[in-house]
């Protein structure tokens, strides 16, 4: 229970925090407003506190000085009147003198909070008792601290003061300053007299000033936040516009431009952006045109070659058909001519296919097909060739449904190429053709146990016209474009061809075709074959020459010319 409760609470707190955090990370406007508001608030608080303190000090100081002066004047008047009075000798006279003194104090000072205590050490027996002018208990001798009284008692010439609270039994405390001084009744004794001056008006003034400062502070913070918001809006809106335009530009909308108005920095930004966009657009167009010209040239050349090639082929066909009646040299020449014309034709066809990929003008003819069926057909069609090469083809179909949308003609072409390569480089070892599937993709692996390739060769295996070993004799013909075309076909399907190879161990090509979105594709067949794991020792022993290299050729058209 508690776990759930704290869980939901935690979730709620996180939920509450998420939005501001998100805004903080994502909105320059929010961040700027927040920072400037916080900074302004701090500055205003410091200023207001300082001002309030200064005013407070000033108010209290002047009030204190006033108070002290008032008290001093009153005491002085009373003292001089006491000094001038006839020396009291009896109790009645001292009582009268005390009464006179009380009255004088009341009239001479501006306060009604007066208390007096005789100082026993300096007083005779006839000294009258102390008094206080208040009967309501608002000001009593007990409110004066002992420390102050000690000071007053021992330092006769000075005024002493302290801040106290005048405590009404059932009312609020009234702040006050109490001033203490000695008052001598000649020949009778010395009083310590305390005059309390309420300063509640000062406190009121101060409270008002503080309130005014607080209101002003809050108002300023709000105004600053508002101003910053306005400024940010005028600055951030164009920046947001620029960032949107940049995003559109990067998505390929080359015609994106910003409105240029005014002469300020933002207009300069818009102009620079537009210039940049202009230059990008023109460069891309230029490149696209160049590339188009080149593609068209390749395509045109290939097509132009076709008409004379047709003539040559027909002529070679006639000669080839008649070779029985030629002398041996001419007959062999006719054969060579015939074979090489066929090769030339294949080369031209491959070249055209490549130029179609480059031009992006290839359309797949998709249909639902079982990859096992397609792969098995290819294996069957190449069994004769394999047999001639003394090579066994071992076909392993997929478990379960391996139907995927594919262009079977192209998939057959890919597999013919992979299996053909395996036969050619397989050193008469058996070749394993394995089909597998999962929910995201179908795949076929072609594994030979032949020569294998060096890592640097493996990396280049999909390059056009590239050959692992130029000196090696080709027995199955081929144009050097086969794997490039195979890769092009695989990519058209959103799939990939991966290759693993190790010198002296063999080569493993894996064609993977996605069933749905290519991005979600999980390879059903790992390109590194399971038996490769056992060759770890071999690799360590034989040095860098036998290192394994796995090349992943993912979809996405990186140009490799």
């Amino acid at each position, binding site marked *: 229970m508690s776990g759930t409760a704290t869980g939901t609470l935690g979730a709620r707190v996180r939920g509450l925090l998420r939005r501001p955090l998100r805004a903080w990370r994502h909105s320059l406007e929010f961040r700027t407003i927040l920072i400037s508001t916080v900074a302004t608030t701090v500055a205003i608080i410091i200023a207001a506190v300082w001002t309030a303190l200064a005013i407070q000090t000033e108010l209290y100081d002047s009030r204190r000085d006033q108070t002290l002066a008032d008290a001093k004047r009153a005491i002085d008047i009373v003292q001089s009147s006491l000094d001038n009075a006839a020396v009291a000798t009896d109790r009645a006279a001292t009582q009268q003198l005390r009464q006179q003194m009380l009255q004088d104090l009341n009239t001479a000072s501006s306060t009604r909070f007066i208390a007096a205590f005789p100082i026993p050490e300096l007083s005779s027996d006839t000294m009258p008792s102390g008094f206080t002018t208040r009967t309501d208990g608002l000001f009593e001798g007990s409110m004066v601290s002992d420390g102050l009284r000690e000071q007053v008692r021992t330092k006769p010439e000075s005024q002493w003061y302290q801040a106290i609270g005048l405590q009404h039994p059932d009312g609020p405390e009234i702040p006050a300053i109490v001033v203490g001084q000695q008052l001598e009744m000649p020949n009778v004794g010395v009083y310590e007299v305390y005059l309390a001056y309420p300063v509640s008006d000062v406190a009121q003034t101060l409270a008002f000033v503080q309130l005014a400062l607080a209101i002003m502070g809050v108002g300023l913070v709000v105004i600053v936040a508002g101003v910053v918001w306005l400024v940010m809006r005028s600055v951030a809106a164009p920046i947001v516009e620029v960032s949107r335009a940049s995003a559109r530009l990067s998505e390929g909308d080359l015609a994106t431009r910003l409105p240029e108005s005014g002469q300020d920095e933002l207009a300069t930004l818009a102009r620079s952006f537009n210039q940049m966009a202009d230059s990008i657009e023109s460069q891309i167009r230029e490149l696209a045109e160049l590339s188009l010209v080149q593609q068209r040239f390749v395509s045109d050349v290939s*097509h*132009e070659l*076709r*008409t*004379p*090639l*047709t*003539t040559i*082929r*027909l*002529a070679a*066909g*006639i000669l080839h058909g008649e070779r029985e009646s030629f002398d041996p040299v001419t007959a062999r020449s006719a054969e060579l001519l015939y074979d090489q014309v066929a090769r030339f*034709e294949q080369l*031209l066809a491959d070249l055209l296919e490549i130029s*179609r990929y480059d031009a992006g*003008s290839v359309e797949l003819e998709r249909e639902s097909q079982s990859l096992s069926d397609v792969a098995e057909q290819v294996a069957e069609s190449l069994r004769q060739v394999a047999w001639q090469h003394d090579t066994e083809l071992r076909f392993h179909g997929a478990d379960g449904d391996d139907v995927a949308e594919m262009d079977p*003609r192209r998939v057959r072409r890919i597999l013919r190429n992979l299996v053909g390569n395996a036969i050619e480089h397989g050193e008469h070892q058996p070749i394993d053709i394995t089909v597998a599937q999962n929910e995201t993709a179908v795949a076929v692996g072609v594994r030979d146990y032949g020569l294998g390739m060096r890592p640097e060769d493996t990396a280049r295996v999909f390059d056009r016209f590239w050959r692992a070993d130029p000196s090696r004799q080709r027995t199955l013909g081929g144009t050097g474009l086969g794997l490039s075309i195979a890769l092009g076909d695989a990519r058209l399907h959103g799939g990939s061809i991966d290759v693993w190879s190790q010198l002296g161990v063999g080569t493993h090509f894996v064609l993977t075709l996605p069933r749905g979105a290519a991005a979600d594709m999980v390879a059903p067949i790992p390109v590194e074959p399971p038996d490769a794991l056992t060759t770890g020792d071999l690799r360590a022993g034989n040095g860098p020459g036998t290192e394994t290299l796995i090349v992943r050729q993912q979809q996405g058209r990186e140009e490799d010319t």
Partner: protein
Amino acid sequence: MVDDDTALAEMIGIVLKSDGFETAFCADGSEAVDVWRAEKPDLVLLDLMLPGKDGIEICREIRVESGVPIIMLTARSDTTDVVSGLEAGADDYIVKPFNPKELVARIRTRLRPATPEDNQTLRVGDLTIDVAAHEVRRGDELISLTPLEFELLVALASKPQQVFTREQLLEQVWGYHYKADTRLVNVHVQRLRSKVERDPDNPRVVMTVRGVGYRAGASS
């Protein structure tokens, strides 16, 4: 044989001659139709790209006057030229470079005598097909079809309950034993419909079976 490349034309001539055909040549598109009228060949081999007048235009002009089989020669199969040529009435096309056997096979398919199995009369939709006489009638009205269109219609009408895939029609009518261009079928079905249907948009004679192919409409 209409081709501006005289070497190829001559070579094709040699190949065809060795297979027992006679050839006449024309290297200029603008003269092709005149040469055709003068020679009255059994079949026209037509290059698509010609000086003077292009192959598509020549094809259209010949079709106005005759249903003579026309095979186009083209260097590229992936352009709209091929479809335009088929739409203009060419029966088939062959992509350079071709081998001689292929060329001869294509020509023979187009020249083979229409198989007069028996003197049967087929009915499809509101049409009557006299197979032996090579005639198609709607009531008393004679509809003129090219031999290819006639063969296509007969193929469909002879098995009215069967749905033909495009591949089956390619094999039966065009003689392709491997996967070929299904545009051939699509274009010629359209051409056939434009001649035999009262409303080509709402066909009654050649019905489309979505996702499979075509079949003949019920006879009425």
